[in-house]
């Protein structure tokens, strides 16, 4: 028997929750302007009905059930219902175009697809002429579905009704299948977004998910009565751990927003106690606050500035429980009443006890801003193959430049090459239908290569990540090239949305920049700079001047680190379009795909190195509906001042 007693599967945890706290809220969703609530008992009954309905439709043990749509209780329930039937849920990225869905649907061989709405159904229908194993499509939102051929398609509520009606027929079968689930049966299969090559299906067992949930819940003291907002893609491992694994293990409530566009409002209404967001969400919120403060009256501005200064000085210390003078404590208390409290309330963070950010490096100013307000924002480092957690920051030991200590139950070691390896109960079972990749990632002793380069700080025992191991390269003169390090420094400026740095094997580094339309647009408005399009704003001479300033500042800071001083950006250009996942330039989790960009914009890169001051280019773009178009532009190339590099090079020669 496993270490967790009888609780060896998600359905078993659901059963326990329905018995232990039947009336506590389990799921909330805002619909028609009102938060609808389902208690654990109600959710358990719904999920069972869905499972019975799936049996009636002929779902078999071991089948893969693809789930695609925005975060909704019905879709979470479908995943658990599939597990009850002995099938494996496979959540997919809802914003993937049909082309991208083909590969995953084909690879997992899904017989059932659960769709959120008509948009997703259309994509499934579109791919059905190429793959033929999809037998049943079930949709949640009925809108616009009336005219579709329903011979192999069902509305989820009809499935539920059928399941309820047929319960005498299938009760025994369903109970049998739930009883068959053990600690080693597959819990979920998640496709990695794949910065390189095709996505891989990561098979995670009940042991992986439940052990990880148990350990991480204990680490942060999560408890029933906590609230999370489920708004990150369901296909992402983090959402599965937070909204399914930890929620089921602890019995806390999962809240689903009304739509992607109302997320910020819903966040405020719910006031989660446990919150996760990638850095860009925190960045976006901070940018918004700053923009709105610019428009505030003089007194408010002065108050804000004064008390934010107080917070910057003593806030993190108070949060970490370090000694702070009484005068400062009083000042902070007043600031909390006047500024921090109302601000946290506006942002929806009044009740946050544990907040995490991960996925990308977060700017130190942004990180410190939230912490100084008294929000316990921490960093973690993880990946799909580890069921998220590799390292995380304990309360009171939080810094913006580290990712924390190994999570409970996780062993971490650094190889001679600098690559980070780990071994844990959350370590994935295998890549689906891909034994070669499994073998090359996970060795016989269970150690997994993360593909990231990093090191442990000797004084604190915290891990620091520098870059992707394969991206860390050498420049022509042998100096270290760590593009991500430079890009992150650039991206910490609110006006820079993305940056791509080149220089591997070359003499000097150069960069592409993407402006952040919200921040730069606002700046332009306040400085009376007229523009009619993204492209025009991006190419504006004053925007170039501002960017040049940012690049030169970054160069100065890089020059201070002798190891990395070769990475200073000598020349840069501002791209005429945003890098976009629809064009394949980024992954769905918004990580830059270097290879694709290098190929697509080879003409621009050439121009960066041959000394031209401008270049004319034409770029293919894909619209949201999958159609293609082209944009033409003449881009300026700008030189940026560097520090000490030439002297060093001379010395090296």
């Amino acid at each position: 028997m496993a270490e967790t007693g009888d609780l060896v599967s998600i359905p078993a945890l659901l059963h326990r929750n329905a018995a232990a706290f039947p009336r506590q809220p389990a799921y909330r969703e805002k619909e028609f302007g009102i938060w609808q609530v389902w208690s654990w008992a109600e959710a358990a009954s719904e999920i069972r009905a869905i499972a019975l309905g799936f049996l009636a439709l002929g779902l078999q043990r071991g089948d893969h059930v693809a789930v695609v749509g925005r975060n909704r209780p019905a879709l979470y329930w479908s995943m658990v219902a599939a597990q009850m039937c002995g099938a494996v849920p496979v959540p997919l990225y809802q914003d993937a175009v049909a082309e991208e869905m083909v590969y995953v649907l084909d690879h997992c061989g899904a017989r059932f697809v659960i769709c959120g709405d008509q948009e997703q159904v259309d994509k499934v229908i579109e791919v059905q002429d190429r793959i033929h194993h999809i037998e049943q499509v079930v949709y949640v939102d009925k809108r616009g579905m009336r005219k579709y051929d329903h011979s192999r398609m069902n509305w989820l509520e009809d499935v539920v009704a059928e399941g309820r009606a047929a319960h005498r027929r299938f009760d025994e079968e369903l109970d049998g299948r739930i009883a068959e689930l053990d600690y080693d049966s597959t819990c979920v299969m998640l496709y990695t977004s794949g910065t390189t090559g095709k996505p891989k299906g990561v098979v995670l067992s009940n042991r992986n998910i439940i052990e990880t949930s148990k350990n991480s819940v204990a680490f942060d003291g999560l408890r029933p009565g906590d609230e999370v907002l489920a708004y990150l893609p369901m296909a992402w491992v983090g959402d599965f751990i937070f909204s399914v694994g930890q929620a089921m293990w602890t019995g806390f409530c999962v809240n689903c927003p009304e739509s992607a566009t109302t997320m910020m409002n819903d966040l405020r209404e719910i006031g989660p106690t446990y919150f996760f967001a990638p850095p860009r969400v925190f960045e976006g919120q901070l940018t918004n606050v700053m923009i709105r403060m610019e428009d505030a009256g003089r007194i408010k501005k002065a108050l804000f500035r004064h008390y934010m200064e107080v917070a910057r000085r003593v806030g993190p210390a108070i949060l970490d429980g370090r000694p702070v003078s009484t005068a400062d404590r009083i000042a902070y208390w007043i600031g909390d009443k006047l500024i921090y409290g109302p601000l946290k309330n506006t942002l929806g963070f009044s009740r946050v006890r544990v907040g995490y950010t991960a996925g990308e490096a977060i700017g130190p100013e942004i990180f410190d801003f939230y912490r100084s307000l008294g929000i316990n924002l921490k960093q973690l480092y993880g990946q799909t193959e580890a069921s998220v957690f590799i390292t995380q920051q304990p309360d009171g030991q939080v810094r913006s430049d580290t990712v924390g200590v190994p999570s409970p139950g996780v062993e971490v070691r650094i190889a001679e090459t600098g690559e980070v390896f780990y071994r844990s109960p959350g370590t994935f079972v295998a890549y689906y239908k891909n034994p070669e990749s499994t073998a090359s990632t996970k060795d016989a002793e269970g150690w997994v290569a993360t593909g990231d380069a990093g090191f442990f700080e000797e004084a604190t025992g915290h891990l620091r990540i520098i870059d992707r191991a394969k991206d860390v390269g050498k420049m022509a003169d042998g100096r270290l090239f760590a593009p991500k390090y430079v890009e992150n420094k650039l991206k910490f400026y609110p006006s820079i949305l993305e940056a791509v740095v080149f220089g591997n094997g070359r003499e000097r580094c150069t960069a592409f920049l993407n402006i952040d339309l919200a921040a730069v647009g606002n700046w332009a408005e306040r400085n009376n700079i007229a523009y009619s399009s993204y492209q025009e704003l991006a190419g504006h001479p004053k925007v170039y001047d501002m960017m040049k300033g940012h690049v030169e500042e970054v160069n100065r800071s890089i020059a201070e680190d002798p190891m990395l001083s070769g990475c200073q950006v000598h020349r840069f250009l501002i791209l005429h379009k945003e890098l976009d996942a629809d064009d394949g330039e980024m992954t769905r989790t918004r990580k830059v795909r270097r290879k694709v960009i290098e190929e697509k914009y080879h003409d621009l890169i050439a121009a960066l190195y041959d000394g031209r001051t401008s270049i004319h280019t034409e770029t293919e773009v894909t619209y949201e509906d999958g159609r293609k178009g082209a944009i033409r532009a003449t881009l300026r190339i700008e030189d940026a001042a560097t520090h000490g590099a030439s002297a060093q090079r001379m010395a090296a020669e």
Partner: protein
Amino acid sequence: MNALDVTMDETGADERRIGGVLMEMKNITLRFGGVKAITDISFDIREGEIRAIIGPNGAGKSSMLNVISGFYVPQEGEVWFRGKRRPQMKPYEVAQQGIARTFQNIALFEGMSVLDNIMTGRLTLMKTGLWSQALWWGRAQAEEVEHRAKVERIIDFLEIQHIRKTPVGRLPYGLKKRVELARALATEPKLLLLDEPMAGMNVEEKEDMCRFILDTNDEFGTTIALIEHDMGVVMDLSDRVVVMDYGKKIGDGTPDEIRSNKAVIDAYLGVQHD
């Protein structure tokens, strides 16, 4: 469990059906002083169809729509609605009859929120009096909750949840148009009149609007009469098209028939006079 179990008046029919004649215009002539805006036009609108009125600038399309809505009373001719000859009516009587419209130049209450604007569309359907509404007591409260529930359905239908509480004056043009459509839908119309629903929109906004018009027609079975300049939109959307030029009807039929109609082509492309 689902606290909100209100169903919109869905037709329930599995096939989208085009029924009998809902409105018929018989030999309409409209004059402003000596100017003839409309000359002897007859056509009908069938239940459940999307009917477009097109024509070059100044052809009399908006006048025609105003005759349909009862705002203009023609000097000659008859308007028949649901089998009865329609007498001269006040605007609120028209609304009570089940006709709703949107305007070419958006006519919303700029200072009010999106939600309140749409709620005004429910006004003709409210039964409680001024005093009980002002006190918000008993029946009036229950009624408001009921109306709010229907309005929320429409907000969901048109995907404008995120601007529910935003004052209309702060919205971009394309969204205002959508709010106006929402308000018209809130009256639960039998016949919906759209005056240039796509004017001034970009391609993406137009595509959204097309989808909402088709969905409205499909989900609620609403009959729609629209004026539009964008020929591509008209030909894709409508079941039948009336073409006007200089106040006269020069064509009437399905989009395909109109496309090959000589008089229409001449009116749009111009004719060479030898």
